[in-house]
């Protein structure tokens, strides 16, 4: 049963592309056939983050405008079996394709792949509408910041209006020490406002910056907590129940006492 999942957020820079690359990679490592599609036409990044930019010959606009077949534009990942990328066009913009065309493309890929993951651009205009057109499910990415949560809330409203119900949430770049000091929103605050199911919490991790710059998804780095988080998210997407990572450092007795009295 093939699934099309769109990874969206509203706000830019919260980790959609990074999540798409790592979740796609983790799913392929679990033996699934995965194609990731970059829907950010004009500002493509997914190819860079996966280290496949010099292998691009055709892109998603070429497929839709009939200059090539989907198979020709698809780039097989250099490290991982079962993982393919359809890059975006860099010289066009988001009006180059329509939602119907995206929907058709996704439908045509369903026969060959277990998971089709769409990297949605930031914003709520045509780019967003195109990206969600073919999706069965959505994952909303947010960081623990008021502005990101505000935009995520808007996006969830728009997803529901487009009949994509029950999106799931990834909270990215959580800094547990800041949360404990009360300087950063905690998970409960975020879920209180957004009111959707949590599918993963990815802690802030320097390894991510290193990996995206190198063009190597982080999931194979066993020392990275973020990698472990993405692996768990991929498992949950496949229906497995996985416990959330223990991110707390020592909760001191004073800390517990403060919690009881509602102090920070």
């Amino acid at each position: 049963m093939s699934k099309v999942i769109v990874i969206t957020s509203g706000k830019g820079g919260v980790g959609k592309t990074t999540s798409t690359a790592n979740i796609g990679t983790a799913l392929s490592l679990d033996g699934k056939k995965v194609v990731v599609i970059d829907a950010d036409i004009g500002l493509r990044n997914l190819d860079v983050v996966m280290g496949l930019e010099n292998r691009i010959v055709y892109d998603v606009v070429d497929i839709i405008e009939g200059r090539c077949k989907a198979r020709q534009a698809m780039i097989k990942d250099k490290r991982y079996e079962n993982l393919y990328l359809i890059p975006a066009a860099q010289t066009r913009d988001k009006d180059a394709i329509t939602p119907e065309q995206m929907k058709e493309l996704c439908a045509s890929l369903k026969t060959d792949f277990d998971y089709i993951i769409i990297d949605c651009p930031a914003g709520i205009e045509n780019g967003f509408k195109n990206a969600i057109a073919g999706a069965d499910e959505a994952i909303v990415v947010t960081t623990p910041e008021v502005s990101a949560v505000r935009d995520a809330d808007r996006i969830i409203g728009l997803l529901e209006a487009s009949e994509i119900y029950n999106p799931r949430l990834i909270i990215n770049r959580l800094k547990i020490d800041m949360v404990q000091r009360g300087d950063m929103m905690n998970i409960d605050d975020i879920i209180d406002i957004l009111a959707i199911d949590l599918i993963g919490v990815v802690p802030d991790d320097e390894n991510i910056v290193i990996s995206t710059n190198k063009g190597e998804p982080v999931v194979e780095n066993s020392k990275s907590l973020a990698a472990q988080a993405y692996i768990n998210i991929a498992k949950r997407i496949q229906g497995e129940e996985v416990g959330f990572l223990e991110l707390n450092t020592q909760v001191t007795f004073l800390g517990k006492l403060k919690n009881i009295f509602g102090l920070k």
Partner: protein
Amino acid sequence: MGNLNESIEFKGTKNGFLINIKGNFDINAVKSEITSKLSSNIEFFKGAKFIGINSDHLDKESTEEIINHLKDKCAIEFVDIPHRKVSHTKKEKTVAKDEKEKSISEDLPTKFVKTTIRSGSFIDYEGNIVVLGDVNPGAQLIATGNIVVMGALRGIAHAGAKGDNNAFVAANKLSPIQLRISDFIAIPPEEETSLKTEPQIAFISENIIVIESYQTRVKIME
């Protein structure tokens, strides 16, 4: 004329004491009565903050005179209710004067919304609005009548939108970005004023938007 002693009442609210004066009395009698009440209970009122004087019969000038007298003679502190500090800009009235509705909000139709209202959503209704869920920041409710949120009000709510000064906004957790009733606007104070969340109701009193604990206010309205 009633007993002056019993007609002067100190009412405690979240932001400080309100002095209620029921009935019509000579201003000097009132001044000396209040002064004597304060001095005979000096320990109790030490450090207390007062937010104002409510009177059916005394006009604004008279109440201000009393306030100044109390400030001088009894050295008590009158503070502005945090909501008063901020803009009570009267918005430009684009509606013609005769369209102003009297307080008939109780008879207006009511719209029930049974979901959480997300950011970017906008509800505009000729009547009252009741939300069985939260109103998230970035969402906006505009009602000609009252607004009740059985959840957290974190967005913008505008009650009495056509000029009904008797409209109110009530919520289980009242933490809006901006609150508007009729032509008045208020924004919440900078710091979190209370640790516990309790149902609260906002309404217009003496030309400012006032917020009180729901339990206390409903008792007055009975």
